[in-house]
């Protein structure tokens, strides 16, 4: 299988770092944002931002496809 574009992998790494590895930085109650504890707010924000990262990754992967390949 052809390896994924390095740019797409980097974009995919963003939500992994923010939602998973950075947990000690955001797992606290204060400051409350929109009435939510900070940890819950942070995760909700990244649920919304992750599709943006993956949309950019999708554009990168699409641009890389060989001209002969059938597009949908």
């Amino acid at each position: 299988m052809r390896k994924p574009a390095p740019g797409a992998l980097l974009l995919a790494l963003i939500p992994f770092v923010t939602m998973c590895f950075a947990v000690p930085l955001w797992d606290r109650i204060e400051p409350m944002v929109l009435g939510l504890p900070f940890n819950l707010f942070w995760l909700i924000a990244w649920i919304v931002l992750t599709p943006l990262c993956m949309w950019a990754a999708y554009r990168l992967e699409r641009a890389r496809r060989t001209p002969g390949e059938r597009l949908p």
Partner: protein
Amino acid sequence: MSPAVLCLSTILGIVALGTAVGFLAGVHRRMDLEQWTVGGRGFGVVLIFLLMAGEVYTTFAFLGASGWAYSRGGPVLYVLAYLTLAYVVSFFILPQIWEVGRKHGLQTQSDFFLVRYGSKYLAGLVCVVGIISFVPYLQLQITGVGIIVSVASYDGIGRTPAMVGAVVLLVAFVFASGVRAVAWVSIVKDVLMVFAALAIGIGVPSMHFGGIAPMFAALAHARPAHLTMPGATANLGHAWFVSTVLLTSFGFYMWPHGFGATFTAKSADTLRRNAVVMPLYTLTLVFIFFAGFAAVLVLPGLSNGDLALLTVVRKSFPPWFLGVVGGAGALTAMVPASIFILTAATLFAKNLYRPLLAPTMTDDQVARLARAMVIVLGLISLSLAVFSTTSLVSLLLTGYAGVTQFFPGVVLGLYWKRVTAPAVFVGMIAGVVAAVFLMLSHRDPLFGLSAGFLALCLNFLIVIGLSLLTTAPAGDAATAAADSWSEAR
């Protein structure tokens, strides 16, 4: 009409509606093996979205996640992170799996291992591990139906008769309709689920605290430790969070049914676009969390956290609404459960029994055996659900520790030419044995890390190490498979 009767008849009506939609979808189509299992390989973005969403939002999300928000607090946040990241992972593996599926006419996960590694023993092992991992997941759904019916009957109907009824309906449903029915019932279920989640997540905090923000303010004041990790637990801290999120997000599409659903897609691009938008679906769960957190102050001291959501609904809303929530909940159990049963039965008949014991069976005979297995599996999981008392989240994590052991074989199989069948075989067995040993000896988490994750690391090390040591001799079936593989692109 008494509240219990009103509530139960609402549930029954909703389940009947969902089932009718399913039966109608199955009519007028000849059910050969391919139509029954992969829906003729022609599902577009919408049906795939529904099929995959149908598998994601199970009783676990409905009762289990709110139950953990209630009983454990902070650690439940892992659910939001893992579901989102699972779709990120899927972006890089599902389209590739689909390409292979189209080229080789694959129907199941085990087919994938057979074609990639050219070993029927490895393919058989994948079946066995897959079917065994399904059992706790199936048990989770049946337990969920039992909880729903007993709460909705105001404790008038016991859990056991409720679970028996659920299994009977489930088997009848799967028998009649196959995978296409499941995708259509998902529509009914998802609409109800989103409606119920919003109403509960906004309604419960508003009624008891005057809104979501005041509810969290009250909770932060009264029980601040509950809102962060490790919450009400002793050992589910940040290391547990990271290791569990990695385990479950890698494992999410390793479930045989999720993997198999890939083959129902129309194109690889369908799957890529799905992976981009699916994280948004996770937002529904946030509202379920609100209800679970609200229950901490509204209903302190419940013995079983999994009852929290329904009990708080019963306390706050009229009986008919509890019926709607219960009906949505019952469908969120039945839809995934029928997918699991369907997948496990097909795996057993097509990938385990036929290749290893009865190579001369025809496709029609395999389809008949698969239908017989549906009944057997329904009975096995029913008896386990009746005799066990584990929490819903623990059941899910047990299944994950099993299926995630497929991940090295899949991802290295797709992207690394040198990986060999013996290495994957040994790694998978080591991973499963390590996970089972750690869990049965109550060493989960170990050093603060999830046992399934440690087992996955061991698995990866063994697969990579042994692949570098073992090289398949030229002309070997595995080499031939690997060669035909690389020509796929």
